Protein backbone atom coordinates (compact mmCIF):
# COMPACT_ATOMS: atom_id res chain seq x y z
CA UNK A 1 0.00 0.00 0.00
CA UNK A 2 1.14 3.51 -0.77
CA UNK A 3 1.75 5.12 2.61
CA UNK A 4 3.06 8.28 1.02
CA UNK A 5 -0.35 8.77 -0.65
CA UNK A 6 -1.97 8.55 2.79
CA UNK A 7 0.51 11.04 4.17
CA UNK A 8 -0.06 13.46 1.30
CA UNK A 9 -3.82 13.36 1.84
CA UNK A 10 -3.63 13.93 5.60
CA UNK A 11 -3.58 17.76 5.72
CA UNK A 12 -6.26 18.07 3.05
CA UNK A 13 -8.63 15.82 4.96
CA UNK A 14 -7.98 17.66 8.24
CA UNK A 15 -8.75 20.89 6.39
CA UNK A 16 -12.06 19.52 5.11
CA UNK A 17 -13.14 18.45 8.59
CA UNK A 18 -12.24 21.83 10.06
CA UNK A 19 -14.21 23.59 7.32
CA UNK A 20 -17.18 21.40 8.17
CA UNK A 21 -17.06 22.69 11.70
CA UNK A 22 -14.79 20.31 13.59
CA UNK A 23 -12.25 21.90 15.90
CA UNK A 24 -8.66 21.31 14.88
CA UNK A 25 -7.71 18.96 17.71
CA UNK A 26 -10.68 16.64 17.17
CA UNK A 27 -10.27 16.77 13.39
CA UNK A 28 -6.63 15.78 13.73
CA UNK A 29 -7.49 12.87 16.03
CA UNK A 30 -10.26 11.70 13.69
CA UNK A 31 -7.95 11.76 10.68
CA UNK A 32 -5.28 9.77 12.56
CA UNK A 33 -7.94 7.17 13.38
CA UNK A 34 -8.99 7.10 9.74
CA UNK A 35 -5.35 6.62 8.67
CA UNK A 36 -5.04 3.64 10.99
CA UNK A 37 -8.15 2.16 9.43
CA UNK A 38 -6.84 2.84 5.93
CA UNK A 39 -3.62 1.00 6.72
CA UNK A 40 -5.75 -1.95 7.84
CA UNK A 41 -8.32 -1.98 5.03
CA UNK A 42 -6.66 -0.61 1.91
CA UNK A 43 -4.19 -3.43 1.21
CA UNK A 44 -7.15 -5.77 0.49
CA UNK A 45 -9.58 -3.24 -0.84
CA UNK A 46 -8.08 -0.04 -2.23
CA UNK A 47 -10.90 2.49 -2.68
CA UNK A 48 -11.40 4.10 -6.10
CA UNK A 49 -11.41 7.52 -4.50
CA UNK A 50 -8.92 7.37 -1.61
CA UNK A 51 -9.45 11.01 -0.64
CA UNK A 52 -13.25 10.66 -0.58
CA UNK A 53 -12.88 7.46 1.46
CA UNK A 54 -10.64 9.16 4.01
CA UNK A 55 -12.95 12.16 4.34
CA UNK A 56 -15.98 9.90 4.88
CA UNK A 57 -14.26 7.69 7.44
CA UNK A 58 -12.58 10.57 9.26
CA UNK A 59 -15.85 12.48 9.46
CA UNK A 60 -17.58 9.41 10.86
CA UNK A 61 -14.81 9.01 13.44
CA UNK A 62 -15.21 12.65 14.35
CA UNK A 63 -18.97 12.29 14.77
CA UNK A 64 -18.57 9.14 16.88
CA UNK A 65 -16.08 10.89 19.14
CA UNK A 66 -18.20 14.03 19.37
CA UNK A 67 -21.29 11.98 20.26
CA UNK A 68 -19.45 9.97 22.87
CA UNK A 69 -18.12 13.20 24.29
CA UNK A 70 -21.47 14.97 24.38
CA UNK A 71 -23.33 12.00 25.81
CA UNK A 72 -20.69 11.75 28.48
CA UNK A 73 -21.46 15.28 29.40
CA UNK A 74 -25.22 14.55 29.27
CA UNK A 75 -25.77 17.11 26.60
CA UNK A 76 -27.88 16.73 23.58
CA UNK A 77 -26.23 15.79 20.36
CA UNK A 78 -25.61 18.96 18.51
CA UNK A 79 -23.66 17.66 15.58
CA UNK A 80 -25.86 16.59 12.69
CA UNK A 81 -25.08 13.26 11.07
CA UNK A 82 -25.32 14.66 7.58
CA UNK A 83 -22.98 17.59 7.34
CA UNK A 84 -23.40 20.52 5.03
CA UNK A 85 -20.21 20.77 3.04
CA UNK A 86 -18.52 24.07 3.77
CA UNK A 87 -18.35 26.59 0.96
CA UNK A 88 -14.57 26.62 0.97
CA UNK A 89 -14.09 22.91 0.52
CA UNK A 90 -12.55 23.32 -2.91
CA UNK A 91 -9.75 25.35 -1.37
CA UNK A 92 -6.75 23.38 -0.20
CA UNK A 93 -6.38 24.17 3.47
CA UNK A 94 -2.93 22.66 3.70
CA UNK A 95 -1.25 26.05 3.87
CA UNK A 96 -3.42 27.02 6.85
CA UNK A 97 -2.36 23.82 8.56
CA UNK A 98 1.30 24.66 8.03
CA UNK A 99 0.73 28.03 9.72
CA UNK A 100 -1.25 26.55 12.58
CA UNK A 101 1.31 23.83 13.33
CA UNK A 102 4.18 26.33 13.31
CA UNK A 103 2.25 28.90 15.35
CA UNK A 104 4.58 31.21 17.34
CA UNK A 105 2.86 30.21 20.61
CA UNK A 106 4.35 26.71 20.24
CA UNK A 107 7.84 25.74 21.35
CA UNK A 108 10.05 24.58 18.47
CA UNK A 109 9.88 20.95 19.62
CA UNK A 110 6.07 21.07 19.78
CA UNK A 111 5.79 22.77 16.41
CA UNK A 112 8.01 20.13 14.85
CA UNK A 113 5.95 17.28 16.31
CA UNK A 114 2.61 18.80 15.37
CA UNK A 115 3.75 19.59 11.83
CA UNK A 116 4.98 16.04 11.28
CA UNK A 117 1.68 14.62 12.49
CA UNK A 118 -0.94 16.98 11.06
CA UNK A 119 0.80 18.08 7.87
CA UNK A 120 3.13 15.14 7.40
CA UNK A 121 0.66 12.42 8.37
CA UNK A 122 3.23 10.53 10.46
CA UNK A 123 2.14 8.51 13.46
CA UNK A 124 3.12 9.51 16.99
CA UNK A 125 5.29 6.41 17.14
CA UNK A 126 7.21 7.36 14.01
CA UNK A 127 7.78 10.89 15.29
CA UNK A 128 8.89 9.60 18.70
CA UNK A 129 11.46 7.33 17.08
CA UNK A 130 12.77 10.14 14.90
CA UNK A 131 13.43 12.27 17.98
CA UNK A 132 14.57 9.44 20.26
CA UNK A 133 11.96 9.96 22.97
CA UNK A 134 9.40 7.50 24.39
CA UNK A 135 6.13 7.32 22.47
CA UNK A 136 4.11 8.43 25.53
CA UNK A 137 6.26 11.56 25.81
CA UNK A 138 5.66 12.41 22.18
CA UNK A 139 1.92 11.76 22.52
CA UNK A 140 1.80 14.23 25.40
CA UNK A 141 3.82 16.78 23.50
CA UNK A 142 1.43 16.59 20.57
CA UNK A 143 -1.74 16.80 22.63
CA UNK A 144 -0.40 19.77 24.59
CA UNK A 145 0.54 21.46 21.32
CA UNK A 146 -2.99 20.92 20.02
CA UNK A 147 -4.42 22.49 23.15
CA UNK A 148 -2.06 25.45 22.78
CA UNK A 149 -3.30 26.26 19.28
CA UNK A 150 -6.95 25.38 19.95
CA UNK A 151 -7.98 29.03 20.17
CA UNK A 152 -6.08 30.11 17.05
CA UNK A 153 -8.43 30.92 14.21
CA UNK A 154 -7.88 28.51 11.39
CA UNK A 155 -8.27 30.95 8.51
CA UNK A 156 -5.87 33.59 9.80
CA UNK A 157 -2.80 33.79 7.52
CA UNK A 158 0.47 33.09 9.30
CA UNK A 159 4.09 33.97 8.76
CA UNK A 160 5.88 31.64 6.40
CA UNK A 161 9.20 32.30 8.18
CA UNK A 162 8.00 30.41 11.26
CA UNK A 163 7.07 27.46 9.04
CA UNK A 164 10.49 27.48 7.41
CA UNK A 165 12.18 27.40 10.80
CA UNK A 166 10.17 24.31 11.72
CA UNK A 167 10.97 22.53 8.45
CA UNK A 168 14.64 23.41 8.87
CA UNK A 169 14.59 21.74 12.29
CA UNK A 170 12.87 18.65 10.89
CA UNK A 171 15.54 18.40 8.21
CA UNK A 172 18.45 19.02 10.53
CA UNK A 173 17.56 17.26 13.75
CA UNK A 174 15.49 14.21 12.97
CA UNK A 175 17.23 10.86 13.18
CA UNK A 176 15.30 8.20 11.39
CA UNK A 177 13.57 5.06 12.51
CA UNK A 178 11.30 3.78 9.74
CA UNK A 179 10.81 7.22 8.19
CA UNK A 180 13.55 9.54 7.01
CA UNK A 181 12.93 12.98 8.58
CA UNK A 182 15.19 14.70 6.05
CA UNK A 183 13.21 13.29 3.11
CA UNK A 184 10.01 14.17 4.95
CA UNK A 185 11.19 17.77 5.41
CA UNK A 186 11.94 17.98 1.69
CA UNK A 187 8.48 16.65 0.83
CA UNK A 188 6.79 19.16 3.13
CA UNK A 189 8.94 22.03 1.86
CA UNK A 190 8.21 21.08 -1.74
CA UNK A 191 4.51 21.21 -1.05
CA UNK A 192 4.80 24.51 0.80
CA UNK A 193 6.66 25.93 -2.19
CA UNK A 194 3.90 24.77 -4.53
CA UNK A 195 1.38 26.53 -2.27
CA UNK A 196 3.23 29.83 -1.86
CA UNK A 197 5.93 30.27 -4.51
CA UNK A 198 7.87 32.39 -1.98
CA UNK A 199 11.57 32.78 -2.85
CA UNK A 200 12.67 31.97 0.72
CA UNK A 201 10.66 28.72 0.62
CA UNK A 202 12.49 27.97 -2.62
CA UNK A 203 15.73 28.89 -0.86
CA UNK A 204 15.15 26.41 1.95
CA UNK A 205 14.04 23.72 -0.50
CA UNK A 206 17.20 24.26 -2.57
CA UNK A 207 19.33 24.19 0.60
CA UNK A 208 17.80 20.88 1.67
CA UNK A 209 18.18 19.31 -1.77
CA UNK A 210 21.82 20.39 -2.03
CA UNK A 211 22.66 18.95 1.40
CA UNK A 212 20.66 15.80 0.80
CA UNK A 213 22.63 15.28 -2.42
CA UNK A 214 25.83 14.92 -0.40
CA UNK A 215 24.40 12.65 2.23
CA UNK A 216 25.90 9.34 1.11
CA UNK A 217 29.39 10.82 1.14
CA UNK A 218 29.16 12.40 4.58
CA UNK A 219 29.70 9.20 6.54
CA UNK A 220 32.49 6.75 6.08
CA UNK A 221 33.05 3.20 7.36
CA UNK A 222 31.81 2.69 10.90
CA UNK A 223 29.63 5.78 10.69
CA UNK A 224 32.60 8.11 10.87
CA UNK A 225 32.16 11.72 9.84
CA UNK A 226 33.78 12.65 6.53
CA UNK A 227 34.43 16.42 6.20
CA UNK A 228 33.59 18.22 2.97
CA UNK A 229 37.19 18.36 1.78
CA UNK A 230 37.53 14.56 1.95
CA UNK A 231 34.15 13.58 0.56
CA UNK A 232 34.05 11.39 -2.53
CA UNK A 233 32.31 13.84 -4.84
CA UNK A 234 31.46 11.15 -7.37
CA UNK A 235 28.93 9.92 -4.81
CA UNK A 236 27.05 13.22 -4.77
CA UNK A 237 23.59 12.97 -6.30
CA UNK A 238 23.83 15.11 -9.44
CA UNK A 239 20.06 15.04 -10.07
CA UNK A 240 19.33 16.54 -6.67
CA UNK A 241 22.09 19.10 -7.18
CA UNK A 242 20.73 20.13 -10.59
CA UNK A 243 17.24 20.45 -9.16
CA UNK A 244 18.45 22.45 -6.16
CA UNK A 245 20.48 24.81 -8.33
CA UNK A 246 17.59 25.39 -10.75
CA UNK A 247 15.17 26.15 -7.91
CA UNK A 248 17.70 28.49 -6.31
CA UNK A 249 18.42 30.37 -9.55
CA UNK A 250 14.74 30.98 -10.19
CA UNK A 251 14.38 32.25 -6.62
CA UNK A 252 17.40 34.55 -6.80
CA UNK A 253 16.02 36.01 -10.03
CA UNK A 254 13.10 37.39 -8.02
CA UNK A 255 15.59 39.63 -6.23
CA UNK A 256 14.18 39.11 -2.74
CA UNK A 257 17.16 37.68 -0.96
CA UNK A 258 16.81 35.96 2.40
CA UNK A 259 18.97 33.81 4.65
CA UNK A 260 17.93 30.46 3.19
CA UNK A 261 18.66 31.57 -0.35
CA UNK A 262 22.07 32.83 0.76
CA UNK A 263 22.82 29.54 2.54
CA UNK A 264 21.67 27.61 -0.51
CA UNK A 265 23.94 29.73 -2.71
CA UNK A 266 26.91 28.69 -0.57
CA UNK A 267 25.85 25.05 -0.74
CA UNK A 268 25.46 25.37 -4.53
CA UNK A 269 29.00 26.72 -4.92
CA UNK A 270 30.31 23.71 -2.98
CA UNK A 271 28.15 21.33 -4.99
CA UNK A 272 29.47 22.84 -8.20
CA UNK A 273 33.16 22.41 -7.40
CA UNK A 274 35.20 19.33 -8.39
CA UNK A 275 37.36 19.70 -5.24
CA UNK A 276 38.01 22.00 -2.28
CA UNK A 277 40.94 23.65 -4.03
CA UNK A 278 38.84 24.34 -7.14
CA UNK A 279 36.01 25.87 -5.10
CA UNK A 280 35.12 29.51 -5.71
CA UNK A 281 35.95 30.59 -2.17
CA UNK A 282 35.95 34.29 -3.05
CA UNK A 283 32.31 34.08 -4.04
CA UNK A 284 31.55 31.99 -0.96
CA UNK A 285 33.03 34.72 1.25
CA UNK A 286 30.78 37.24 -0.53
CA UNK A 287 27.75 35.12 0.22
CA UNK A 288 28.80 34.86 3.86
CA UNK A 289 29.00 38.67 3.92
CA UNK A 290 25.41 38.80 2.61
CA UNK A 291 24.35 36.20 5.15
CA UNK A 292 25.99 38.18 7.94
CA UNK A 293 24.08 41.31 6.90
CA UNK A 294 20.84 39.31 6.90
CA UNK A 295 21.32 37.46 10.19
CA UNK A 296 24.20 38.96 12.19
CA UNK A 297 24.70 35.40 13.44
CA UNK A 298 27.95 34.58 15.25
CA UNK A 299 27.89 31.09 13.70
CA UNK A 300 27.88 32.68 10.26
CA UNK A 301 30.87 34.79 11.31
CA UNK A 302 32.68 31.61 12.37
CA UNK A 303 31.97 29.83 9.07
CA UNK A 304 32.97 32.95 7.19
CA UNK A 305 36.40 32.79 8.86
CA UNK A 306 36.88 29.30 7.41
CA UNK A 307 35.95 30.56 3.95
CA UNK A 308 38.28 33.57 4.30
CA UNK A 309 41.03 31.13 5.27
CA UNK A 310 40.51 29.26 2.01
CA UNK A 311 40.12 32.38 -0.14
CA UNK A 312 42.95 34.53 1.25
CA UNK A 313 45.09 32.11 3.23
CA UNK A 314 45.06 30.86 6.83
CA UNK A 315 46.46 34.08 8.33
CA UNK A 316 43.59 36.08 6.86
CA UNK A 317 41.27 33.39 8.23
CA UNK A 318 42.76 33.77 11.71
CA UNK A 319 42.33 37.55 11.46
CA UNK A 320 38.65 37.02 10.58
CA UNK A 321 38.38 34.59 13.47
CA UNK A 322 39.60 37.28 15.87
CA UNK A 323 36.17 38.91 15.50
CA UNK A 324 34.41 35.75 16.69
CA UNK A 325 33.65 34.88 20.31
CA UNK A 326 35.80 31.95 21.53
CA UNK A 327 32.77 30.66 23.44
CA UNK A 328 31.14 29.41 20.26
CA UNK A 329 30.98 25.67 19.76
CA UNK A 330 33.46 24.71 17.02
CA UNK A 331 35.58 27.81 17.61
CA UNK A 332 38.54 25.72 18.79
CA UNK A 333 38.12 23.33 15.86
CA UNK A 334 38.18 26.17 13.32
CA UNK A 335 41.20 27.76 14.98
CA UNK A 336 43.01 24.41 15.01
CA UNK A 337 42.27 23.97 11.31
CA UNK A 338 43.62 27.41 10.41
CA UNK A 339 46.68 27.09 12.68
CA UNK A 340 47.60 23.77 11.12
CA UNK A 341 47.63 25.49 7.75
CA UNK A 342 50.01 28.17 9.03
CA UNK A 343 52.35 25.34 10.08
CA UNK A 344 51.78 25.75 13.82
CA UNK A 345 51.23 22.04 14.38
CA UNK A 346 51.94 22.14 18.10
CA UNK A 347 49.10 24.51 18.89
CA UNK A 348 46.85 22.94 16.27
CA UNK A 349 47.13 19.49 17.89
CA UNK A 350 46.41 20.89 21.36
CA UNK A 351 43.40 22.83 20.03
CA UNK A 352 41.99 19.81 18.19
CA UNK A 353 42.16 17.86 21.46
CA UNK A 354 40.48 20.75 23.27
CA UNK A 355 37.83 20.92 20.53
CA UNK A 356 37.11 17.21 20.87
CA UNK A 357 36.34 17.70 24.56
CA UNK A 358 33.89 20.49 23.67
CA UNK A 359 32.23 18.52 20.83
CA UNK A 360 28.44 18.20 21.01
CA UNK A 361 28.10 14.91 19.14
CA UNK A 362 29.90 11.59 19.34
CA UNK A 363 30.73 11.66 15.60
CA UNK A 364 32.23 15.11 15.88
CA UNK A 365 34.15 14.17 19.02
CA UNK A 366 35.64 11.11 17.37
CA UNK A 367 36.48 13.08 14.25
CA UNK A 368 38.27 15.80 16.22
CA UNK A 369 40.14 13.22 18.30
CA UNK A 370 41.35 11.66 15.05
CA UNK A 371 42.40 15.10 13.77
CA UNK A 372 44.38 15.70 16.98
CA UNK A 373 46.00 12.30 16.56
CA UNK A 374 46.81 13.00 12.91
CA UNK A 375 48.49 16.34 13.64
CA UNK A 376 50.45 14.80 16.54
CA UNK A 377 51.73 12.17 14.16
CA UNK A 378 52.89 14.90 11.76
CA UNK A 379 54.75 16.49 14.65
CA UNK A 380 56.67 13.32 15.37
CA UNK A 381 57.85 12.75 11.81
Amino acid at each position, binding site marked *: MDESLLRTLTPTVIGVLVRRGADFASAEDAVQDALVEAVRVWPDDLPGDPKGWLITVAWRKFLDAARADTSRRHREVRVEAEPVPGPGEAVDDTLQLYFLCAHPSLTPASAVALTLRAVGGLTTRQIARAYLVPEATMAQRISRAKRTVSSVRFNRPGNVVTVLRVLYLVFNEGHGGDVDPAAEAIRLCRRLFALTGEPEVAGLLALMLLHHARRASRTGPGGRLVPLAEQDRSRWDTHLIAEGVAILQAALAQDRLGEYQAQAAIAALHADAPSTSETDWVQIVEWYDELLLLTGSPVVRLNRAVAVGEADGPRAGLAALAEVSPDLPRYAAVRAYLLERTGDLERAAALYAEASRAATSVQERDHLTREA*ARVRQLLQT
Partner: protein
Amino acid sequence: MAKYLLLKHYRGGPAPVTDVPMDQWTPEEVSAHVQYMRDFIARLESTGEFVDTQSLSPEGTFVRYDGEGRPPVTDGPFAETKDLIAGWLVIDVDGYERALELAGELSAAPGAGGKPIHEWLEVRPFMCELPTITD
Protein backbone atom coordinates in the same frame (compact mmCIF):
# COMPACT_ATOMS: atom_id res chain seq x y z
CA MET B 1 16.44 -11.01 33.25
CA ALA B 2 18.13 -8.20 35.11
CA LYS B 3 19.25 -4.78 34.01
CA TYR B 4 22.74 -3.45 34.63
CA LEU B 5 24.34 -0.10 34.10
CA LEU B 6 27.88 -0.17 32.74
CA LEU B 7 29.34 3.22 33.62
CA LYS B 8 32.30 4.73 31.84
CA HIS B 9 34.24 7.37 33.78
CA TYR B 10 36.48 10.10 32.44
CA ARG B 11 38.11 9.86 35.84
CA GLY B 12 37.27 8.62 39.31
CA GLY B 13 37.82 4.87 38.98
CA PRO B 14 40.83 2.88 40.16
CA ALA B 15 44.18 3.90 38.64
CA PRO B 16 44.07 3.34 34.88
CA VAL B 17 46.13 0.49 33.46
CA THR B 18 47.08 2.47 30.36
CA ASP B 19 47.08 6.23 30.34
CA VAL B 20 48.01 7.38 26.84
CA PRO B 21 45.39 10.06 26.02
CA MET B 22 43.33 9.28 22.96
CA ASP B 23 44.63 12.24 20.94
CA GLN B 24 48.08 10.67 21.19
CA TRP B 25 47.03 7.46 19.48
CA THR B 26 47.27 7.21 15.72
CA PRO B 27 44.14 8.13 13.73
CA GLU B 28 43.81 4.44 12.74
CA GLU B 29 43.90 3.38 16.39
CA VAL B 30 41.15 5.88 17.17
CA SER B 31 39.07 4.48 14.30
CA ALA B 32 39.67 0.90 15.42
CA HIS B 33 38.54 1.79 18.94
CA VAL B 34 35.34 3.45 17.70
CA GLN B 35 34.62 0.50 15.43
CA TYR B 36 35.09 -1.96 18.32
CA MET B 37 32.46 -0.06 20.32
CA ARG B 38 30.00 -0.08 17.42
CA ASP B 39 30.51 -3.79 16.82
CA PHE B 40 30.06 -4.49 20.52
CA ILE B 41 26.70 -2.66 20.57
CA ALA B 42 25.59 -4.40 17.37
CA ARG B 43 26.40 -7.75 18.97
CA LEU B 44 24.35 -6.88 22.06
CA GLU B 45 21.44 -5.92 19.86
CA SER B 46 21.65 -9.21 18.02
CA THR B 47 21.62 -11.19 21.28
CA GLY B 48 18.66 -9.19 22.58
CA GLU B 49 20.60 -7.75 25.51
CA PHE B 50 20.93 -4.12 24.46
CA VAL B 51 18.82 -1.42 26.12
CA ASP B 52 20.48 1.97 25.75
CA THR B 53 23.79 3.74 25.42
CA GLN B 54 24.68 7.43 25.70
CA SER B 55 27.82 9.51 25.86
CA LEU B 56 28.08 12.57 28.08
CA SER B 57 30.09 15.67 27.42
CA PRO B 58 32.70 16.37 30.11
CA GLU B 59 31.39 19.79 31.16
CA GLY B 60 28.82 19.60 33.93
CA THR B 61 27.28 21.95 36.47
CA PHE B 62 25.82 21.40 39.92
CA VAL B 63 22.43 23.04 40.44
CA ARG B 64 20.16 23.39 43.46
CA TYR B 65 16.94 25.10 44.55
CA ASP B 66 17.55 28.41 46.28
CA GLY B 67 14.17 29.30 47.69
CA GLU B 68 10.86 30.67 46.45
CA GLY B 69 11.09 33.17 43.60
CA ARG B 70 14.84 32.87 43.27
CA PRO B 71 16.69 31.38 40.33
CA PRO B 72 18.44 28.08 41.06
CA VAL B 73 22.01 28.30 42.30
CA THR B 74 24.65 26.80 40.06
CA ASP B 75 28.12 25.68 40.98
CA GLY B 76 30.96 24.40 38.87
CA PRO B 77 32.03 23.06 36.50
CA PHE B 78 34.82 21.75 38.67
CA ALA B 79 38.04 20.96 36.89
CA GLU B 80 39.14 18.95 39.93
CA THR B 81 35.97 16.87 40.43
CA LYS B 82 37.11 13.42 41.43
CA ASP B 83 34.43 11.45 39.64
CA LEU B 84 33.42 12.34 36.11
CA ILE B 85 31.03 10.12 34.19
CA ALA B 86 31.70 9.77 30.45
CA GLY B 87 28.75 7.68 29.40
CA TRP B 88 26.83 4.53 29.96
CA LEU B 89 25.54 1.32 28.50
CA VAL B 90 22.40 -0.33 29.84
CA ILE B 91 22.06 -4.06 29.28
CA ASP B 92 19.33 -6.54 30.11
CA VAL B 93 20.96 -9.90 30.80
CA ASP B 94 20.47 -13.21 32.58
CA GLY B 95 22.43 -12.20 35.62
CA TYR B 96 25.44 -10.69 37.26
CA GLU B 97 27.91 -13.15 35.74
CA ARG B 98 26.86 -12.19 32.24
CA ALA B 99 27.03 -8.49 33.09
CA LEU B 100 30.62 -8.92 34.28
CA GLU B 101 31.52 -10.91 31.20
CA LEU B 102 30.18 -8.17 28.91
CA ALA B 103 31.87 -5.40 30.90
CA GLY B 104 35.14 -7.32 30.52
CA GLU B 105 34.67 -7.49 26.77
CA LEU B 106 33.89 -3.80 26.54
CA SER B 107 36.96 -2.98 28.61
CA ALA B 108 39.14 -4.87 26.09
CA ALA B 109 38.51 -2.24 23.38
CA PRO B 110 41.78 -1.59 21.52
CA GLY B 111 43.81 1.53 22.21
CA ALA B 112 47.36 2.72 21.55
CA GLY B 113 49.37 0.13 19.65
CA GLY B 114 46.15 -1.82 19.05
CA LYS B 115 46.39 -3.27 22.57
CA PRO B 116 43.37 -3.51 24.92
CA ILE B 117 42.95 -0.39 27.05
CA HIS B 118 41.86 -2.35 30.15
CA GLU B 119 39.47 0.51 30.98
CA TRP B 120 37.83 0.31 34.40
CA LEU B 121 34.04 0.10 34.05
CA GLU B 122 31.60 0.36 36.92
CA VAL B 123 28.83 -2.26 36.90
CA ARG B 124 25.67 -1.29 38.80
CA PRO B 125 22.54 -3.40 39.06
CA PHE B 126 19.23 -1.59 38.50
CA MET B 127 16.67 -1.73 41.29
CA CYS B 128 14.06 -4.01 39.77
CA GLU B 129 10.31 -3.66 39.54
CA LEU B 130 8.29 -5.26 42.34
CA PRO B 131 7.42 -8.79 41.17
CA THR B 132 3.76 -9.81 40.90
CA ILE B 133 4.18 -12.63 43.40
CA THR B 134 5.70 -11.21 46.55
CA ASP B 135 4.94 -13.88 49.13
